[in-house]
């Protein structure tokens, strides 16, 4: 049943223009960002670093296009009433939608592989470093899909879901909570992974980009995605409170 739902959700992105729009928008924004803001060519030493450096901002703009339709579109068109009265468990519903969104995000990332391949042909670049950076981007795609899924489940209008997801994504990526946690970190100097940087998105993302990520960085993305997934499950469960 999960597979049936996953296929339906994935198909919905390709029946219309959403997936194709997202692919084109992602590549355009990434290239503009890497070439102009990141000085991909100007430095005369093309590397993927400028590309990966601007990925969080690009993903914050593009991923909400994918996530906004997960629930808000169903609410808007009324199909939510059908979906929530089908014999499908809440977790299966949520996870199938998130998995479909993450799949579209993954395909979107794969569109940029030719750029990585041609860059490696031009300059001596460590392929493992590039793979590590892609890992960070892929996990960011996952987190933003689930974050957008929560917002989409709480919103009846897809465009409102887009805007709120965009703002929350940018906040997540730019707010450094270290100063707030510093007093606690000083009291608990031996806390696992170092509390002060535990919730710092840029630090964890940079670790992947630099190719020396550790368990704390993987744990950060997985736990953030997990918490948001549970939140999404709770929101849908609340919608479907039953009798």
């Amino acid at each position, binding site marked *: *049943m999960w597979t*049936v*739902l996953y296929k*339906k959700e994935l*198909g*919905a992105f390709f*029946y*219309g223009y959403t997936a194709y729009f997202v692919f084109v928008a992602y590549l355009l924004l990434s290239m503009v960002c890497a070439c102009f803001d990141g000085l991909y060519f100007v430095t005369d030493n093309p590397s993927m670093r400028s590309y990966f450096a601007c990925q969080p901002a690009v993903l914050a703009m593009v991923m909400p296009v994918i996530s906004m339709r997960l629930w808000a579109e169903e609410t808007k*068109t*009324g*199909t939510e*009433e*059908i979906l*929530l*009265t*089908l*014999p*499908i*468990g809440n977790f299966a519903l949520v996870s199938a939608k998130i998995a479909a969104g993450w799949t579209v995000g993954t395909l979107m990332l794969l569109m940029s592989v030719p750029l990585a391949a041609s860059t490696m042909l031009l300059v001596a670049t460590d392929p493992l470093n590039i793979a590590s950076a892609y890992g960070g981007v892929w996990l960011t795609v996952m987190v933003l899909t689930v974050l957008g899924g929560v917002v989409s489940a709480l919103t009846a209008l897809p465009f409102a879901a887009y805007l709120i997801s965009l703002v929350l994504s940018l906040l997540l990526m730019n707010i450094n909570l270290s100063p707030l946690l510093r007093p606690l970190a000083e009291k608990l100097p031996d806390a696992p992974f170092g509390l002060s940087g535990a919730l710092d998105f840029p630090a964890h993302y940079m670790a992947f980009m630099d190719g020396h990520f550790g368990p704390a960085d993987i744990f950060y993305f997985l736990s953030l995605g997990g918490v948001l997934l549970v939140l999404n499950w709770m929101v849908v469960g609340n919608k*479907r*409170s*039953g*009798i």
Partner: protein
Amino acid sequence: MIEVNGLVKTFGRRQVLKNIAFSARSGELITLLGPNGAGKTTLLRIICGYMAPDAGSVTVDGRAYGSNRLEILRHIGYMPENTPLYPEMTVGEYLRFIGGVFKMRAGDFAESLGQITEELGIKDVLGQKIQTLSKGYKRRAGIASVLIHRPRLAVLDEPTEGLDPNQKIEVRRFLRRYAENNLVLISTHLLEEAEALSSRVLLLSGGRLKLDAPVDDLRKHSADGTLADAFYRLTRETGEE
């Protein structure tokens, strides 16, 4: 088959359902009648588990919602008002999706699909995208999706809205046949629909169940013997909300 006890539902300060209670069994085709805003859609939504009541309960085959939710939903087919379907899918894809959700075996699905699409006259549009369908075809595709897995309880909100007279007759005939072995609950504000279709009428007005009787008994409340007059007399006391 279904027991509804003391249902109460309030939106803000407005009580939409006031202590609704009735029971129904397989073999019945029940029409839920009432003026706009009487609480028909809310009642159907609660019966199908889409909405929770503030008080009261619904049991299907002796099972109440809660931990039995998925088990109950396996035996229900529900078509909401305005037939919301996935516009980007073809009719065939949508029916296959529903069949997959209800874990129908390939053979059963093929048999059911052949029969239902033939009877509802939608065989020719199986490959057509839902967004390109006329209102009548869309409505019949919605009915097919509700009944494709042969639920024991079929709940349809305004099932013949938008159909031409011939299509109405065919759909009504089809629903009557389906109700021979199952329970069909439809909502409408069309009196002719209630008379043409049902064995029993539940008349809701102002959130209260004003009448639960065979359709012929409805006329007893009329001064001139017409259904319209009976409807007017029974519903004007509370009026529309």
